[in-house]
């Protein structure tokens, strides 16, 4: 820092960095919006429900049982959450490892989405497990070194830290800590490689979870290739989420966008669409290969078979074609539609594997309790609020003027 740098007083820091340059009163007034009223209503119901779950135990708010120990907290908050947070490693790999520099403008939002996604996966996990102070037991006191859960635990723990480090430059630019920021530039590639490696490992090991329950998962979804399916579909989820999230951000945070930057969002999303078309196409054939290997063609002509075909053809093959058509006709709107379809497809697939086609043959089918849904909605709302808080303050959608083009 130069010697002329002024010492920022605590109150000025609070006003400029936290209160968006407003006095506390004006800032409080600016929070009174319709959107915030909805968020507040959700939290007013959700946070006490969450507290109640920790106080009375999960039987008090959920329909979970010995037969159905995993409900929507696992299916939605964790299994879907991890897949939908895959945009971070997908874009980071594209930009830094495959040299696709044109995707840089969506890198930071993707990493932030990934970081918050994982952070709230952890919240969901703690809600499901209870007794958060025992989380470190699995690493230090009772390590189950042959368990898939052990690997997933380590991966999520380490990858959350890596995502934090990947996002740290934005926070450092916001705080004006130039020296540390410059130091971080030297670590970028190493952190990115670590992040991609960890993602590859645990996206696939989430699929490996279900290898242990061949009798519980419906044979159309059960396959020895589940880890491969989970890994490939996480890439499609990442691409779909980045398209979806960049579209939303560009509407919601229009004032944040740098008019000088001239980011051609349409061209960028069409570039992602091309990748999405190819990966989805390959994924559909991988799934068909899984079906052939199981040899259970007879099941295709059942109700489950129709549901399976709807998932694969309607939510994976169709978006692949829509992506291809979007690229061919240079229609960014079509690419966005296909992006949403892809996200829905991955969500449907994760729900099928971990919930709908899981325990398909038991009498006592699980239906989520209201309390479980309320807590899941609360966790997503918290994620959105933290995302908004950060985007409004740190250089995420725009580049910090002093750090333009720096890694």
């Amino acid at each position, binding site marked *: 820092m130069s010697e002329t740098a002024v010492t920022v007083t605590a109150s000025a820091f609070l006003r400029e960095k936290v209160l968006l340059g407003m006095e506390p009163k004006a800032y409080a007034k600016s929070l009174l919006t319709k959107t915030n009223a909805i968020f507040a209503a959700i939290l007013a119901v959700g946070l006490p429900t969450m507290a109640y779950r920790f106080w009375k135990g999960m039987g008090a708010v959920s329909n979970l049982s010995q037969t159905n120990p995993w409900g929507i907290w696992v299916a939605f908050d964790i299994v879907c959450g991890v897949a939908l947070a895959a945009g971070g490693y997908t874009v980071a790999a594209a930009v830094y490892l495959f040299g696709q520099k044109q995707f840089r403008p969506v890198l930071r939002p993707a990493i932030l989405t990934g970081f918050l996604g994982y952070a709230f996966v952890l919240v969901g996990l703690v809600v499901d497990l209870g007794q958060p102070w025992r989380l470190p037991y699995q690493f230090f006191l009772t390590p189950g070194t042959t368990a898939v859960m052990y690997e997933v635990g380590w991966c999520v723990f380490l990858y959350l830290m890596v995502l934090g480090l990947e996002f740290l430059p934005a926070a450092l630019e916001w705080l004006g800590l130039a020296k540390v920021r410059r130091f971080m530039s030297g670590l970028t590639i190493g952190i990115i490689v670590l992040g991609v490696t960890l993602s590859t490992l645990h996206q696939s090991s989430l699929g490996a979870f279900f290898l242990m329950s061949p009798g519980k998962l419906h*044979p159309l979804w059960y396959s020895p290739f589940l880890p491969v399916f989970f890994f490939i579909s996480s890439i499609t989820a990442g691409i779909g989420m980045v398209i979806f999230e960049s579209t939303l951000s560009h509407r919601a945070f229009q004032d944040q966008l740098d008019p000088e930057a001239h980011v*051609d969002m349409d*061209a960028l999303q069409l570039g992602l669409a*091309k990748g999405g*078309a*190819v990966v989805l*196409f*390959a994924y559909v*054939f991988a799934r*068909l*290969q899984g079906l*052939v*290997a199981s*040899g*259970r*063609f*007879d099941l295709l002509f059942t109700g489950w078979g129709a549901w399976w075909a709807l998932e694969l053809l309607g939510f994976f093959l169709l978006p692949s074609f829509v992506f*291809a058509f979007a*690229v*061919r*006709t*240079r229609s960014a709107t079509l690419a966005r539609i296909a992006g949403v379809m892809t996200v829905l497809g991955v969500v449907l697939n994760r729900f099928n594997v971990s919930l709908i086609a899981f325990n398909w043959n038991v009498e006592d089918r699980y239906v989520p309790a209201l309390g479980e849904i309320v807590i899941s909605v609360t966790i997503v709302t918290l994620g959105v609020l933290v995302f908004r808080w950060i985007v409004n303050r740190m250089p995420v959608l725009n580049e910090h003027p002093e750090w333009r083009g720096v890694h």
Partner: protein
Amino acid sequence: MNPETLTPHAIKGIEYLLAISYLALFIPFWRFLNGATPAQAFAFSWFAVPDDVHLHRGHSWAKTLGGAVMVGLDDFGHKLIGPLDEVKLPAVGTAVRQGQKAFTVVADGESFDVVSPVDGNVVAVNEVARAHAADAVRDPYGTGWLVKVEPRWLTANLKNLLSGDSARRFLDAAAGALAGRMSPELGVVLQDGGAPVHGIAREIEPDRWAELVRQALKGA
């Protein structure tokens, strides 16, 4: 519970068939995905480049003629900038380096440096082009030449330049990049078979056209 409907051999057979059909179907899928978009389909007719011309990525060209090399601004550069008001050519004897400034062209009050495609010394300049700068575009690789250079290590220099199909692909890609920035209305005009707009940069970005040109001439 688990009826074996097929023999292991039949299953293996279907697996192989599925793998082959994936590869076979991927070809038309890939071709569809990369299929000529309207913008690229007519890029060939937009910007010409003869077989004996070598292009630098900064849109200058070189053509060997006896022991010397003719140098000028390529068709793309001319059409991007539009009618030239003036060309500022170096004095005979000046040394030029590949990738560094060789001459300057002026249009609409903006001047643009164009890089040399080869290393060497300037042995002649095109006085006719200097006097009638606006005419250079008519035959950019012929009468529109600007300087003649005696090359120092031509063989090595030519390795860094594009010719034939790779030159056409390069202009094709440059045109594709432009087409992506064009307003839809302009695209329609061109697709209707109209001649390329003279001074494309000004059509695309009226306010920042000079910047667009400089970026293209950097050849990055």
